[in-house]
């Protein structure tokens, strides 16, 4: 089953790092597509198009930044509910914030499985891959992976 990881981050350097580490973590056998958007609305439109094209929501995974212009990560999550009310699309928050309130707020969203602090590193990538692609169960009681 093909999985698509969608990176939503207004910072191109952060996307570059995440993409690089994610790509090298996957086996060539694994059918994973990584797409990235620096404008959240473009990412939303992409997800909407995929859903309209009958792509199953559970095959879409989102790595989402919080602080972005025009619409931020929270607004993105709210808008995503319009297209995917059943919350099949799972999200990992990926922010530079180490503020506890941001982490708590992120984990309060039922769609959000995990909170990862920037920068993306090898150990964090493994968790992302395991969670998103290899469907390793996540301990929801301790979703916060500290830096």
């Amino acid at each position, binding site marked *: 089953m093909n999985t698509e990881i969608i990176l939503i981050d207004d910072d191109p350097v952060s996307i570059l790092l995440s993409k*690089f580490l994610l790509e090298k973590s996957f086996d060539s056998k694994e059918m994973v597509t990584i797409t990235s958007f620096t404008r959240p609305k473009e990412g939303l439109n992409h997800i909407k198009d995929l859903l309209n094209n009958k792509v199953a929501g559970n095959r879409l995974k989102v790595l989402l930044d919080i602080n972005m*212009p025009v619409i931020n990560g929270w607004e993105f999550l709210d808008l995503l509910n319009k297209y995917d009310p059943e919350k099949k699309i799972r999200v990992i928050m990926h922010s530079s914030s180490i503020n506890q309130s941001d982490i708590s707020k992120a984990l309060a969203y039922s769609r959000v499985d995990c909170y990862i602090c920037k*920068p993306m590193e090898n150990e964090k990538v493994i968790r992302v891959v395991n969670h998103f692609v290899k469907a390793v169960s996540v301990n929801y009681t301790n979703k916060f992976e500290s830096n």
Partner: protein
Amino acid sequence: MTLIAYLTFLSIIINLLTFIMLMVKGLETSFERKFFIFNFALLCWQFEEFLLRISVSIDVISQVDFYLSFFWIFLGIFLLDSIYEAKLLIIKHFFWIRILFYSISMFCFVTYISFPSPRLFLESKTFGLVLGFREGSLDIIMRFWIAFVVIICLCIIAYALVANVVNFRKLRLFFIGLLIPSIYGAVFQVYFPYVYGYEIPGATILLSFFSLLSLIIFKDNFMFINFSNDNFNSLIDKINSIVFVFDKQGSIYHGNSSFKTCYPDIESIYSFQEGSNFLNSIAEFMGEGDEWDRTTMDKEMLISEERIGNEYFQFMCYPIHDENVIRGVVVFGLNVTKFVQARNSVVKSFKNFKRLNEIPNSYFLEIDVTTKRVVFNDRFLHRFMLFNKSQYSYLELVLYLKKLIVKEDLMLIIALFRMDIDSVFERASKKIILEFQTPSVYFVFEISFKKFDPHVISNNHLIYLSDITDSSVELLKNDWVDKSTPWIVSHVFRKPVANIIGLMNIVNSEQGIFESRLSSKEIFSLINSEIKDLDSKIEIFSERNSDG
């Protein structure tokens, strides 16, 4: 009654018919009024002629002759006045010449009525009673005088025919119509009385036919006869533009020298080989029974662009109206060849300008102020698929934008469309920023307005639209100084720090550099920019705190 009596009666009927037609027309022009008087004089003469043909006593005829027949003395002068009003010939000091002619006629009249002897009536085997002389009066001299005046009338018409001062094709018929009764009258009304002492009737019958014929010939042409005098022609011949006049049937009554150069030997507008685009525009007032609003008709003008050979003309067609009825058209054709060449050059340059200026994120949109539409070009539509039509009316666009922009911006757009949009384009510095935001769309446009010369492009207004979404987003990114310190630390300061750490992780491993497909130089360049970003943010933050 004899045949000649019936014919005389018929001539009276014809003359009355002419009277009725003139009355229906309304006697609006001088020609019509003079012609009416001429016909009245003729009718009096006919009445007396008719009495001679029926069995009425000589006493009655003598009374009628005494009180009514003097009108024939003025017949020639009324005819001359009518023909002169047709403007076939323009003479200086005509007023004094007219005074002279009237004086002679009045002299004849005075001598006629002051002479007490009754007229002699002779009995003819063929015609019955015929008119003789009034013994001792100037009767025969008056007849020669009238003949002289009629010859002058014929000369004026002949001059108009030979000199071609008027392009009036029925003028020849008019000449013949007068020539026949004139010859008859000269022989039987002048020569016979002079030689035999009595006249042969019949001239009134021929003159009544001439009268009716004249009215039919001139029915629609009084207006155009006035365009055919030397003064007018010499004046418009000096104009270095095409000038011509035609009636509702398309017959051309006059064309100046420029017209004759462009359209040699053409008598109807429908024979034009080139330069006939104006036919489409004048069609609306060439129909039957058109009436124009009196208040606006003087301002009405139709313009067409014509090409004749290698030259371009702008034809301005002005309707000629008699009261509310359109009689024909006068056309002025300005030579605009140089202007058209310049315009083509500008349009070509403008197209090149548009092509060369297809810079990223910049678009020209047209506003057609005549049809009140906004026209999107293909490049814009391809880039911004939220617009799915190439043209929007003002109303359609406002309704469509309603779901894309905030209320304040929408009110601004409505105000732009509702006010005189020309004034918006007059203000070169006028710029507006429009933010398009929906759950799936975010664009920021900067719009400026450019007015173009209407002669250069028909859609004479342009909108220059720049997509400034990226720069707007950048501005939003820096909109953090008013946030709380923990938020700034987490989201602003820590962001470049996190990037630096991430990039350093790559640098620390040779395999990492290899796998990243970036050179170490490029990675260090990224680290450097992140450090500068951090530095500038710290600087902004410290400035805020020091201000506080």
